């Protein structure tokens, strides 16, 4: 690795000062797990890294609102902190479930919620889950603050809508009474491989009738994407085999899936049909 400048601002003003240059090799540093891999492979040679670890309160912590029970999660929260939070386990168990097969203990001890989103890698496990949960992100820069749905962060393959000087500060995750969620990580080569597809699923059912739902597909496409067509097939309906089959067809029809070394496009579409039907049915009858 070639050397670089490393700064640890303690205020947002200082952070924006260090980041606010027209140079994409000046980057924020969260847990550094993704950056270090790219730096070691010489894919990224930074001029300056701006560590976010001393920015304090807004970037830290897992808190529940006493008003509506929603969560505020600081962007520097590590995956281990999520994994071991009793509050998360109680109210957002899908996050605890997702952690089980995400990387390994050492990576989870270091990787952060914000870095995970800003990386823009479509194979990551958490983005489709946050989207299924209807989470939003608060983004700060030198001219102000904006809050956007997590899905609006992603614009393409490793591409995001974040601009130089933008920092993800925190996530807001609603806790929706009556909703159940699940993440399906479909690996095709080895259990611990990157997923061929990831499905974030969240739904609200009464008996076998689906009142509302969100289905998000990742890994098989260029960015995590809601499957609106499949959702529309299922919303308001009582599920049966024929309906689940139609939802799977709608999902396969509305996505552009490419062949890669985790499977051919037709194979991955087949997996998508099968897993959507299975997951919806399992969640409804849970």
């Amino acid at each position: 690795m070639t050397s670089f400048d490393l700064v640890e601002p303690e205020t947002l003003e200082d952070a924006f000062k260090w980041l606010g240059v027209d140079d994409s090799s000046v980057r924020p540093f969260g847990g550094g797990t993704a950056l270090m891999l790219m730096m070691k492979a010489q894919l990224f040679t930074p001029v300056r890294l701006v560590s976010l670890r001393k920015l304090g309160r807004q970037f830290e912590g897992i808190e529940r609102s006493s008003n509506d029970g929603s969560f505020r999660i600081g962007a520097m929260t590590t995956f281990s902190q999520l994994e071991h939070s009793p509050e998360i386990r109680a109210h957002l168990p899908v996050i605890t479930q997702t952690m089980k097969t995400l990387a390994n203990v050492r990576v989870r001890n270091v990787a952060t919620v914000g870095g995970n989103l800003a990386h823009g890698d479509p194979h990551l496990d958490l983005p489709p889950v946050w989207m299924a949960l209807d989470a939003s992100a608060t983004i700060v820069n030198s001219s102000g603050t904006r809050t956007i749905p997590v899905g609006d962060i992603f614009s393409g393959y490793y591409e995001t809508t974040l601009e130089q000087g933008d920092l993800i500060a925190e996530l807001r995750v609603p806790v929706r009474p009556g909703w159940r969620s699940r993440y399906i990580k479909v690996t095709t080569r080895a259990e611990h491989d990157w997923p061929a597809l990831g499905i974030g699923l969240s739904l609200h059912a009464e008996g076998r009738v689906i009142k509302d739902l969100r289905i998000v597909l990742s890994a098989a496409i260029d960015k995590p994407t809601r499957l609106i067509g499949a959702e529309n097939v299922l919303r308001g309906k009582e599920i049966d085999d024929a309906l689940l089959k139609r939802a799977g067809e709608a999902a396969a029809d509305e996505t552009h899936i490419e062949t890669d070394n985790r499977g051919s496009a037709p194979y991955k579409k087949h997996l998508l049909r099968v897993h959507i039907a299975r997951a919806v049915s399992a969640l409804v009858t849970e």
Partner: protein
Amino acid sequence: MTTPRTIRFKLNGRSVSADIMPHETIVDMLTQRFDLKGARESCGQGLCGCCTVNIDGMAVSGCLSLAWFLDGKDVQTIEGVANGATLDPVQQAFIEAGAFQCGFCTPGFIMMVRQLLDLHPDPTEDQMRHFLTGNLCRCSAYPEIIDAVKIAVAKRAELAHLVA
């Protein structure tokens, strides 16, 4: 522009300092500046665990971590695990189970098993396997490693009993 800085931290219980460049990893620093070679780089990608060190009670990959951030931290490596001439119960368990062939992966496995037992003193076999998915043994001593974890659980329980 790029200049070293002096970091001060605890290394295996001793207060130390080092002049560090921003790009130095923890493995670089341990091997080059402290002549500690137990944490070694193999995959260099966070996958294999050969470089495992413990920072403030948390296992991390020394190959993916910058030494710069160690300022003020409490760092433990495999070299600091034994108590003088007395091996740590996890080390002793690996010997009794014969949980290695070449031994290259062993320091990393021992560091991870120690964190496992700190979090779960009496883990299920599923917890053991799950916790160790990020450690690779090219000699494939996995069955013996699981045996070693079980022996270590018993040894730790025995020690706790003696202390209590």
